[in-house]
């Protein structure tokens, strides 16, 4: 299945776009998605932590991703 990933904050710069799409198997988890993303975009791993949300809710590493789910990558922001 194809999963659309929305990028926020510095993730937009890391992905070079505000949205990327990933090809994943049907039983993929958040942890699988994270692995794929960090392989493709090594700078993402260097952030130490970023929030992953599915359909506007905080997602845990073990959560399964479904077709048409909307995934968002939300890195920390420091400015004030």
């Amino acid at each position, binding site marked *: 299945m194809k999963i659309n990933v929305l990028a926020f904050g510095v993730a937009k710069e890391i992905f070079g776009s505000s949205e990327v799409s990933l090809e994943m198997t049907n039983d993929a988890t958040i942890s699988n998605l994270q692995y794929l993303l960090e392989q493709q975009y090594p*700078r993402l791993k260097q952030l130490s932590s970023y929030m992953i949300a599915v359909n*506007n809710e905080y997602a845990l590493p073990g959560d399964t991703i479904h077709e048409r789910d909307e995934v968002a990558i*939300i890195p920390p922001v420091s400015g*004030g």
Partner: protein
Amino acid sequence: MNEDLQRYNCQIALPGFGNEAQQLIGQARVLIVGAGGLGCPAAQYLASTGIGTLGIADYDSVSISNLHRQILYTPADEGKNKAEVACAKLAQQNPGIKLVPHAQKVTSDNVMDVIAGYDIVLDGTDNFETRYLLNDACVLSGKPLVYGAIYQFEGQVAVWNVDKGKGTNSPNYRDLFPDVDATQIPNCTEGGVIPTLAGIIGCMQANEAIKYITKTGDLLAGKVLIFDAQSMQSRIFKIGPVTKTHIRRLKTTIAIPTINATDLKERMLHDDTLELIDVRTLQERDAFDIGGTHIPLDELEEYLAYFASGNTKVLYCSSGKRSDEAVKLIMKRIPEADVFSLEGGIVDWSLSH
């Protein structure tokens, strides 16, 4: 009709408000940490609403580069302490409230004392170290923290650590981001920030503080709002009802050795062993530099050995923020390193004599 009723009449008239809500506002004690892009608008509205005691904590002084978004300051305030200037302006705006400036830097040593006199804290800081410090201190002392952060066109708002009863609290900053490598996240000096975003997010923080105090509306507790000033779209992400973190003590904040531009120029006249290190990006360096070696902040980890011995090294960037982060990272790994961060960066360097 008394003057107070007249001043606050247009908010007392709100459904769910009334004199009771205004009384809660008048009794509330709110501390704003960071009187910058977020703190300035938040402070204006908390003052105008009649918050009984408003504390403003900022050790920094006003610089010209602040003025595009820090709307409480004028060029005449350059060099003055932000907390002092802000309190003086706000006292004119609303002489009926108590304003308390805190001009010292908030550190792990004093944070518990500083927040002790307040019911609610508003995070208007511009660095991760103070954000985590405030978060942990609010969790440890059981106070809600109204969080806001901005970068370029995008902002985040949330209310952390709200008491949910039965000994539970709503999520806090560490639920979202357990830990951050500050050297990997660009700040506003590098990436820029649109001034109006600071206004929008700062006002949203003041809004959440007023809702908390008056017990009206749905707080952004257990949620984080992300707003994009380019598309004007905003989304609210649900985090969960209660925190899953266990914060037991404060992390010690590190005092960063800094040197100001005048002292550095003076010292360079007599000491030619001193080395300058530019931690900015290649594009920034290509445009203008003040000499020395180039080690971009996001590649610093790979060059740590360089700082293990040898001459005194002064790290610089455009404002001093990134060189602070760089010095902090070096000192964590090599406590004996002889490194300094140039205060005010090349902006101050260019203007100093």
